[in-house]
């Protein structure tokens, strides 16, 4: 019942948040915070009770819907899903705190809550059709979040986001249908090791890969993301980067690599090529970007390239590293998006060339920004360092010296971030900023989530074992399939 309640409770509470606004303006956010706390408690329970050997799934819940068609809600978690559910709970709390003063809180938190339930469902579902149902439903609240609370071009971005990602899901759905017709089941545990003819397996693999690649996103399927990120309100950018992109990588890992190890091996060079392309393309785009949020968005694509590279290595080390990179990315990029949003809020400009010397006016916020940027470029002691390093080691291991180009891209990442810091944060204060009334430190409640991100990515950076130990046994078991 734990997993089901984590999916249902947010959805059931959501209408109360919507209507509760009429009773009291603050009620929706407290409800959302309560649900976040509930998710965190449940996650803590799952983490404590999770059998340490981690060999496979735990906490099975099976709800019969229509057995002959194999349409049953089967929920269970292993170490990998557990990590992502933990991030969901963590972001539920931090996003609520970051949106403390949002306009129209009733509708906003209604959408947050109906987003969270299916999000847990995506990570906990072992039935492919249910996975898809949860997967698709997350689009609806996201569409309204971007479209209602976004920046000037929000409607364009929301429409593009919905149509683009829905179109991608069509390929995923077709892949699911072909897979079902070839195997007669949607169940993960029945699908593991199932034998498909190579042509069918390749067809299914490609169809599903398109769906996952758009969501991740990787070049050339990424064009929806910068628009969505730039227009979305910052807390929603956090959901986008922290959870929505992870759905793509998680889906790729769970429903493609683990299910079709041989086919994945066949396509691994393609994945690696796309990954390196993504890393470089996004790196260069970020370097050329003057818009601070768009720059963070491209750096986010760059990091997802690392995730894909880790997955493409098809080794236990690489997959573990990719999952770790997902965790680190979720925490670090969330911090950067939040602060980029605050910078715009305070200075009324998005453009790096119009900023300067912010450190002099708002040292507290800017210190956190610098910490976040250093983590993003891979400062040792943060999650960014461990993630990129382990991914690169795995890639070297599998693909050899050709991967020497990847650290170059990493240097590129350091380059664009440092250049941005030098122009926007340090240096002389820009004219007109001395007397800008809005340019002051954040209220305490909005500092809390930022501090939580920093504490989290330093914690997992210093003691990576807290994350690695959770899913390494699972990954090791599945990595045997690739041998």
């Amino acid at each position, binding site marked *: 019942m734990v997993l089901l309640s984590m999916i249902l409770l947010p959805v059931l509470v959501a209408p109360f948040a919507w209507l509760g606004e009429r009773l009291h303006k603050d009620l929706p956010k407290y409800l959302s915070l309560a649900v976040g706390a509930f998710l965190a408690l449940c996650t803590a329970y799952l983490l404590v009770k999770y059998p340490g050997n981690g060999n496979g799934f735990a906490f099975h819940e099976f709800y019969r819907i229509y057995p002959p068609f194999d349409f049953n809600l089967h929920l269970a978690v292993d170490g990998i899903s557990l990590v992502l559910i933990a991030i969901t709970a963590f972001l539920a709390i931090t996003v609520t705190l970051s949106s403390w003063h949002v306009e129209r809180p009733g509708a906003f938190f209604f959408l947050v809550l109906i987003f969270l339930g299916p999000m847990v469902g995506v990570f906990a579902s072992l039935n492919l059709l249910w996975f898809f149902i949860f997967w698709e439903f997350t689009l*609806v609240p996201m569409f309204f979040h971007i479209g209602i609370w976004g920046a000037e071009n929000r409607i364009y971005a*929301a429409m593009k986001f919905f149509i683009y990602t829905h179109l991608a899901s*069509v390929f995923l759905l077709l892949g699911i249908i072909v897979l079902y017709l070839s195997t007669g089941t949607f169940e993960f545990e029945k699908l593991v090791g199932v034998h498909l003819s190579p042509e069918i397996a390749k067809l299914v693999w490609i169809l599903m890969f398109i769906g996952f690649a758009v969501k991740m996103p990787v070049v050339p399927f990424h064009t929806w993301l910068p628009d969505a990120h730039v227009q979305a309100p910052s807390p929603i950018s956090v959901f986008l980067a922290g959870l929505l992109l992870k759905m793509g990588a998680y889906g790729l890992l769970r429903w493609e690599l683990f299910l079709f190890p041989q086919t994945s091996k066949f396509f691994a060079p393609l994945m690696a090529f796309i990954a390196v392309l993504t890393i470089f393309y996004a790196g260069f785009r970020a370097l050329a970007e003057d818009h601070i949020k768009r720059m963070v968005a491209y750096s986010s694509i760059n990091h997802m390239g690392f995730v894909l590279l880790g997955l493409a290595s098809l080794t236990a080390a690489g997959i573990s590293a990719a999952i770790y990179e997902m965790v680190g990315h979720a925490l670090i990029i969330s911090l950067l998006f939040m602060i980029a949003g605050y910078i715009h809020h305070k200075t009324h400009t998005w453009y790096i060339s119009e900023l300067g010397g912010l450190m002099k006016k708002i040292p507290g916020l800017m210190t956190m920004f610098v910490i976040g940027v250093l983590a993003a470029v891979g400062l040792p002691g943060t999650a960014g360092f461990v993630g990129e390093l382990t991914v690169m080691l795995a890639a070297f291991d599998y693909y050899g010296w050709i991967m020497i180009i990847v650290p170059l891209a990493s240097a590129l990442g350091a380059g664009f971030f440092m250049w941005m810091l030098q122009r926007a944060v340090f240096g002389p204060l820009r004219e007109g900023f001395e007397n800008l009334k809005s340019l002051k430190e954040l209220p305490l409640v909005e500092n809390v989530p930022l501090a939580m991100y920093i504490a989290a990515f330093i914690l997992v950076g210093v003691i990576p074992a807290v994350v690695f130990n959770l899913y390494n046994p699972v990954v090791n078991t599945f990595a045997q399939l690739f041998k």
Partner: protein
Amino acid sequence: MNINFLAAVMILALTGAFLPVINRVFRISGILGAIISSIGYVVSLFLVIISDQGRSILNSFFVTDDVSRLIGGMVLVASWMTMLVIYWITEKDKFVNELIGALMISTAGALLLISAENFVSLIIAMELMTMPTYLMVLFAFDDTSLEAGVKYFFNGALAVGFMLFGISLLYGMTGSFEFAALAKNLFKDPLVALAAVFIFAGFGFKLTAFPFHFWGPDVYDGTCPGVAALLTGISKSAAFIGLMRVIYEAIPVISKEFTLILAVIAAVTMTVGNLLALAQKRVSRILAFSSVAHAGYTLVAFAALSVPVSVTGILYHSVAYVFMKTAAFLCFAVFLFIWGARTMDDYKGLGRREPLLAALFLIFLLSLAGVPPMAGFISKVFVFTAAVDAGMTWLALIGLLNSAFSVAYYIWIAKQMYLEEPTLDKPINDSPKKNFVLIPLAVMAVLLIVLGIWLTPVLNASAVYAAKVGF
């Protein structure tokens, strides 16, 4: 046919027939009329549900099986909800009871159509379903509805003509109208194929399948939207089932030859419907062209007739469609009544003006677009599963891409309602009893969500039917 089912049809038709008479004699108010017709609906719904007990009559004409009970129940619920909404939006019109009477008789015809297993009864049922709607289309008594009515009448007459010609050819060859007898006696012959083409053409008109779709949007747009809800939702769903029985029970020998033709018609129908819907400015025309596109999706399942999943696809899509399309048009009707909103520009900001009504409309639009967990999603899964299973992955891909592109105009309406500033300031008909009209719409929304997750009733019915037609 089961005597309970027949009683259900008779009670519905008689309630409908006597409603105007009662009104003329006793001058009943809107609410009283709604209560009387609701009693008719409830009784006949009850009779449909229990219709597997009781004596059988008229056996070679009609059949009462799981399909007719399931779809019959769904059609009755949809029609009942339509009746409630129509009463609400046309309460003060002095002819409203005539309109409701015609609606009930037409629904009775739909009930007969979904259980017809003989070409004579099929034609009678279809005409019983259609004749009252000729009258209903003219109900607004203005120029556009006159034009729509004329178009509708001539196309309907043409459709019946085509079908009768095809049927007469079959009769000439076998000397029988019965589906079972035809299936036994027919053999592969060019003349049989010709007859099938004419019968398909007749159904093509009813379903607004390409190239017989031209009348559809003009009529749905020209008449009052409550009537359009009946035409695009209830009548079409019933016609799907009628065509399903013809294909699987009457002419199975020849229908497999039509796979490719049906597939091409399906592909063109959905593409044309979606492309034209994208170009529309009036919400009623968008819904009308989306109804053409949905005829295409259903035809995908018909094209996949060599596999049993096709039956599931047809049934599920009919069930989902009868609610989502009827309800979408009814939402449009209510918006038109309260705000006078017709075009996309009028819909700006209506989400803020009517939060609950707009939320319901959103559910129906998302279901039409195929977003889970609504029934429209799972029905599309079955339709396209059937196509892939029958070896027509290309058709499934075209259908899925179409479905993804159709999201553009559904979400466009949502965008207008929720993301734009309102343009309409004052409602033209503000009723204090506004929340009553939400109840029938909410019932359909709940049914759509429940049927999107609880697959058992439809899948069981389709399994029984698939076994019956020999899969």
